[in-house]
């Protein structure tokens, strides 16, 4: 402690800290976090074996998918760039670069939640260290470069440069330089969008509007219907969107992609190429500047939480909010001898209040139904036999709905301690949570079912409907059983409706997500041989006969799980404390 000296001089008398020291320190921090993440504690015994099996399955499924996602755009970009130059369509280079940018940015925005699970610290927290703004800007520009979208985007641009080189070796140098600057432009565009979205998403109202806009965007993309909208020429079916893109080709040259493409194509005319390159540099500088404006606000110190302003708006006089009359009456009737016990009713009420206060979650519940409407209206889908379309659509609705069953305590966080401390049976708590999820599933499935029946071109056979009912009960009960077990053994703290880049923005971990998909697809696949056998032997009720007993068995399995929930939860108290109660 000899280093602690008294205050004898003001600021400015110390030698400046070299930039390399601080940059290397942050690089070392990221490395250590990465290494420590690899060396995390692993479970023992059967859970270890199960973990290894899941890890292998996950890799077998995810790695080929990832490889395809990387190889396809990279190889495609290289090939397309080569084609554009060698086949005399150089103007298509601008479209290619625009396509890469759109894909890059779209994946980046949608990857926020994935990044949240990987990200282990908030880079904005670096403002507390003695950094100058310039260094903070550099650090924030560098941190997060190893995201999938950036890696794939850079590789695609490199492949495009190689494609151009192969087609015309004289364009090698300008192609490489321009692609490097274009990559930088994309990186700053991503950073700019991310930083401003982070700012706006701090506002709950904006989060809800954003979720709505994303849902609308997804819907509108479906209605663009690239292959269905024809031109006036009889018999010629072409894309309306591609026509628009072709006719607006000249405007593309005013975008950064146009500047980049023109710089390469005009490489033999240095003056014209310089003007285009200046345009590309200016757009890169513009995105960097807008990003820097946001960072500077952060650097000076800003407060994004809505807590304080909400407190300011809250009325001061009535301190205790009166219960809603309808629900209070219902609770009272329940408590005085209704179907549900007071504990189950109280837990249900809490789940209901949390659900209804979360606009983002409510929008999330509506989204699959919107897609069912779209799929049902689409000829390509409706031509698919309605007896197969119905279970497929219900399975689609269930993917999102049953995911919540796999982490029923996650949203409670440290509040789960109340259940463990209060004189209540954990069985009642689990039952209440499952009842709420079940109610949501029933509503969603019923609405989806009604939509499909209304929009189906041919009536759905009763046998198919009955077998789908049994299949749905079987799948939901099975997911309830596995989900409850998973909720107890692998809980994960999360904040409902959270869309900012933080840990805990997603309700389930990768293993649970894999389980949900595995159960749904596994049971869906069961329908294929059953459906075939049913047609082959001319027994339309075969599927119902098979799924009926399976549904009963699954319900009994769930009842068995529920009976053991109390014991399992008490045995897993330490897991709860570790995963849910830590800050």
């Amino acid at each position: 402690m000899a280093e602690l000296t008294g205050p004898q001089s003001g600021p400015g008398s110390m030698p400046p800290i070299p930039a390399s020291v601080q940059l290397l320190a942050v690089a070392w921090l990221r490395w250590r976090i990465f290494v420590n993440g690899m060396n995390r504690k692993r479970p023992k015994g059967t859970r270890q074996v199960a973990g290894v099996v899941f890890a292998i399955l996950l890799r077998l499924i995810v790695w080929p998918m990832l490889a395809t996602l990387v190889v396809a755009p990279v190889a495609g970009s290289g090939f397309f760039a080569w084609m554009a130059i060698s086949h005399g369509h150089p103007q298509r280079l601008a479209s290619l670069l625009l396509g890469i940018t759109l894909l890059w940015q779209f994946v980046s925005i949608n990857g926020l939640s994935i990044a949240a699970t990987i990200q282990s610290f908030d880079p904005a927290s670096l403002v507390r260290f003695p950094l100058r703004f310039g260094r903070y800007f550099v650090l924030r520009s560098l941190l997060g470069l190893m995201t999938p979208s950036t890696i794939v985007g850079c590789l695609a641009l490199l492949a495009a440069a190689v494609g151009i080189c192969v087609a015309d070796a004289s364009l090698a140098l300008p192609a490489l330089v321009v692609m490097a600057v274009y990559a930088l432009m994309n990186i700053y565009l991503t950073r700019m969008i991310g930083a401003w979205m982070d700012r706006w998403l701090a506002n709950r109202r904006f989060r809800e509007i954003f979720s709505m806009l994303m849902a609308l965007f997804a819907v509108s993309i479906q209605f663009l219907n690239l292959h269905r909208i024809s031109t006036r020429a009889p018999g010629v079916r072409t894309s309306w969107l591609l026509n628009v893109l072709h006719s607006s080709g000249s405007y593309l040259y005013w975008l950064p992609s146009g500047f980049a493409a023109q710089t390469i194509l005009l490489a033999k005319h240095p003056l014209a190429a310089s003007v285009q390159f200046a345009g590309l540099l200016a757009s890169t500088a513009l995105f960097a500047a807008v990003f820097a404006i946001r960072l500077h606000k952060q650097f000076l110190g800003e407060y994004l939480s809505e807590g304080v302003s909400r407190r300011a708006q809250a009325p001061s006089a009535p301190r205790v909010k009166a219960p809603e009359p309808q629900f209070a009456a219902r609770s009272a009737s329940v408590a005085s001898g209704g179907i549900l016990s007071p504990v189950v009713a109280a837990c249900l009420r809490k789940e209901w209040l949390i659900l209804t206060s979360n606009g983002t979650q409510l929008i999330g519940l509506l989204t699959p139904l919107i897609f069912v409407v779209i799929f049902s209206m689409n000829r390509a889908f409706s031509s698919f036999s309605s007896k197969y379309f119905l279970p497929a659509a219900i399975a689609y609705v269930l993917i999102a709905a049953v995911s919540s069953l796999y982490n029923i305590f996650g949203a409670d966080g440290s509040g789960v301690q109340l259940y463990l401390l209060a004189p209540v049976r954990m069985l009642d708590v689990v039952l209440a949570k499952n009842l709420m999820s079940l109610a949501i599933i029933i509503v969603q499935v019923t609405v989806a079912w009604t939509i499909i029946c209304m929009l189906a071109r041919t009536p759905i056979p009763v046998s198919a409907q009955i077998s789908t009912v049994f299949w749905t009960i079987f799948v939901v009960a099975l997911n309830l059983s596995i989900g409850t077990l998973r909720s107890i053994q692998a809980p994960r703290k999360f904040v409902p409706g959270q869309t900012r880049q933080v840990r805990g923005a997603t309700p389930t971990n990768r293993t649970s997500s894999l389980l949900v998909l595995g159960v749904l697809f596994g049971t869906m696949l069961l329908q294929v041989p059953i459906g075939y056998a049913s047609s082959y032997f001319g027994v339309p009720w075969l599927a119902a006969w098979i799924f009926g007993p399976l549904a009963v068995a699954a319900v009994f399995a769930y009842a068995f799980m529920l009976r053991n929930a109390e014991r399992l939860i008490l045995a897993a108290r330490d897991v709860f404390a570790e995963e849910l109660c830590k800050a």
Partner: protein
Amino acid sequence: MTTPAIDTTALTRRFGDFIAVDNVNLRVEAGQFFGFLGPNGAGKSTTIKMLTGLLAPTSGSIRILGGDLQANSAEIKRQIGVVPEGLALFGRLTADEYLQFVGRMYGLDRATTLSRTRELLEFMQLAGEQKKLITDFSHGMQKKLALAAAVIHGPKVLFLDEPFEGVDAVAAGTLKAMLLRMISRGVTIFLTSHVLEIVERLCTHIAIIHRGRLVAQGSLDELRAGAARIAQAGIQEGGAPPSEEKRSLEQIFLEIVGADREGNPAATAPEQELSWLS
């Protein structure tokens, strides 16, 4: 006249319509152990965030060690240490790694960083936990580590936001030992705490903030005198006379923030309320 360690002029912070800190003029002399008190939501943490450059003031100025915080934030941050409210540790690092990172960020060379890291971990009794990730630390261990990180670069001013909250007596003893050692070497300490006994025992000067406004500032004796004047005014309005004995900081605090009049309705609640409590 010496340069004050902390000097604010008309410091104000608004959140929408809500004024969290209202026109605060603070002056903390170098080498003082300064206690900054106030009820929950009074504006203590907001003030500390502004004083450490984590939150921009809406208006007013902040001078730390004579330098303007807004204009020289990087230089000033080098000379201050902060234990913030949320601790802001990187949970996926070990204590050893975290201290090394912080040391390097403050510009210490590798050898100094390593030796101070070792020394601090020994002092804080964390040396045996080197393999453990911070996320697996207990709350008290995290507080000790946050303090170690705040002092590794030898700050001249130390800001502590609720350093004793949720800390056991043993850990609190370690923290106090560290703070007293720093004070003896001339470091200025600015501390917020709800544990008034600790503030009374450690702090030489105290300021009290209430509803965003600074309502008292001075040494404990000066606060006693101020509280006595308030109590005298209370007698004239029909209140109870103050006791003759030397009052504790808690009594002074309650008198100054007026908890028994407006801040705390429970203090004047009729006997029959909450009668069901056994």
